[in-house]
């Protein structure tokens, strides 16, 4: 079962990410904890990645001091809250959240019963974490060896998190702990969505978050993603989208948090790179202000995630960690239509298209105009998936259930944006 070391090293990410306090202290505490967790995870992973680039084997003495120091300094900073952020939302959580808790408990139960474990986890996500953690380095030689078939181009965040949990241990990954992190990622993502939504006074946020948890708990079990990179990917995506959609006075209130979360997205999955470019681009276009103001604000927000993505890609290319980026040979226009039909079928999510309909109904009850950038992002992401799947044998049934969770999250962000008061 879950070792104490795994649990402690996972929980330690919360204080290590509390340097984000000045950015989120106006949020309700569940949201703050969720963002601290995500920022702590990103802090240690980025350091492990940088040390690996330099060829330095990591240890706790190298990884802990910097985020700890930043957290201590930020705790002593007394940055005043903006006047608009000072009034807190005193509404009590509504009973519908009990339904979210039930769905979440069902996911935990399914993970304990080993019903949600991913094959990819035991074949490469966990194996990379095990290996990198044992040698205290992002081991490129092991990862790129053709006989190991480790998908070397896949971004490193999740295996580096697993490697982090090996610190101070006997060199063996806690496989149970790793799959039980899946409900934790979902809880953190939902908490962030909820806290941002309450801050922006989105009236239906409890209902939207409950729908989100009920759906993603079901998807995680059905698609067997426990131990995979989808749960942390959705955590970072949820934080980024919540930060961008939920504001009171100015649309750039949470740009720093969005930028940090988008960096996490870029380091978690290959399609995360497309998500980052899409979200940055559309935020740029959709912002209020003159073109110059939008360019400056957009560039500030995009700098960190784009630099992160570029660094990972350059590292991968220079160390031979390539695979997906190699052009496919069976790409042909004749496969587009049958693949499109398959994609439309998979969009039902094996729930009679109800997830889209449910969020669509809530969206249509709000200001549809606010949702347009996210709906465009959703459609463009679907077109990206279409281009990826277009081949002689697309086999969408193998992975569409997993990849379609990201465009659905963009659609959910559109729903939240539509429900946000014009000026909260």
């Amino acid at each position, binding site marked *: 079962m879950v070792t104490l070391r795994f649990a402690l090293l996972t929980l330690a990410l919360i204080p290590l990410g509390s340097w984000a306090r000045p950015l989120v202290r106006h949020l309700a505490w569940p949201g703050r904890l969720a963002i601290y967790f995500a920022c702590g995870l990103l802090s240690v992973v980025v350091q492990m990645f940088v040390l690996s680039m330099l060829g330095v084997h990591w240890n706790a003495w190298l990884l802990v001091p910097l985020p700890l120091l930043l957290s201590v300094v930020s705790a002593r900073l007394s940055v005043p809250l903006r006047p608009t952020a000072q009034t807190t939302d005193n509404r009590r959580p509504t009973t519908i959240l009990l339904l979210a808790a039930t769905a979440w408990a069902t996911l935990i139960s399914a993970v304990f019963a080993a019903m949600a474990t991913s094959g990819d986890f035991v074949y490469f996500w966990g194996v990379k974490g095990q290996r990198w953690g*044992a040698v205290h380095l992002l081991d490129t030689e092991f990862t790129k060896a053709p006989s190991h078939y480790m998908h070397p181009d896949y971004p490193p965040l999740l295996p580096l998190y697993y490697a982090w949990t090996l610190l101070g241990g006997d060199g063996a990954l806690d496989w149970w702990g790793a*799959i039980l992190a899946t409900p934790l990622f979902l809880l953190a993502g939902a908490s962030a969505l909820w806290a941002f939504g309450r801050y922006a006074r989105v009236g239906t946020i409890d209902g*939207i978050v409950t729908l989100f948890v009920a759906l993603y708990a079901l998807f995680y079990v059905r698609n067997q993603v426990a131990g995979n990179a989808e749960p942390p990917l959705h955590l970072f995506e949820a934080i980024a989208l919540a930060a961008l959609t939920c504001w009171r006075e100015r649309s750039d209130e949470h740009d720093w948090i969005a930028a940090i979360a988008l960096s996490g997205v870029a380091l978690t999955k290959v399609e995360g790179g497309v998500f980052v470019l899409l979200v940055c681009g559309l935020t740029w276009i959709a912002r209020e202000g003159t073109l110059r103001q939008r360019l400056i604000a957009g560039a500030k927000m995009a700098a960190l995630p784009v630099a992160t993505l570029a660094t990972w890609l350059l590292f991968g290319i220079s160390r031979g960690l390539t695979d997906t980026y190699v052009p496919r040979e069976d790409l042909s226009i004749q496969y587009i239509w049958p693949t499109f039909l398959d994609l439309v079928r998979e969009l039902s999510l094996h729930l009679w298209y109800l997830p889209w309909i449910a969020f669509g109904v809530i969206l249509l009850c709000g200001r549809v105009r606010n949702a347009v950038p996210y709906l465009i992002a959703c459609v463009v992401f679907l077109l990206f998936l279409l281009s990826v799947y277009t081949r002689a044998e697309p086999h969408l049934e193998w992975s569409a259930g997993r990849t379609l969770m990201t465009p659905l999250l963009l659609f959910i962000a559109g729903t939240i944006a539509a429900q946000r008061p014009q000026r909260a």
Partner: protein
Amino acid sequence: MRRRLPLVTAWVCALLFTGIAVREHFARGGPGLARTIASNSSNSPKSAEDTLLLFEEATKVVPRGATITVFKPRNRADDMQVLRFSHGQLPYHQVVPQSELPDFIITLGAPLEDGRYEQVAANDAGMIWRRTRW
């Protein structure tokens, strides 16, 4: 209506999705603590569970640092898949390619036909062999 519809939609659909999750959970055996992380996940859960238990046994009976490899004697096409899986499940040992002659071998699905090795453990998934002759 426009104010209540979002909440009603959220309640009805969340109830439905949670109900589906609970129903599917119980249809696959319901709550319980599985013996291994793969006991209920793959297409052949019994085989996956036995395989993981065999690897667990190997971490106990095979001395740390020993060289070891894994294969299916009746399906050598699976060599690469078996090997990459083994790298994760045998953290204390040196997992080597099947082409080498290691200190230990795990065979899945069939016995090893090599007089230099003797069996040290077994379960329904396969056997663990130790090299005794050089």
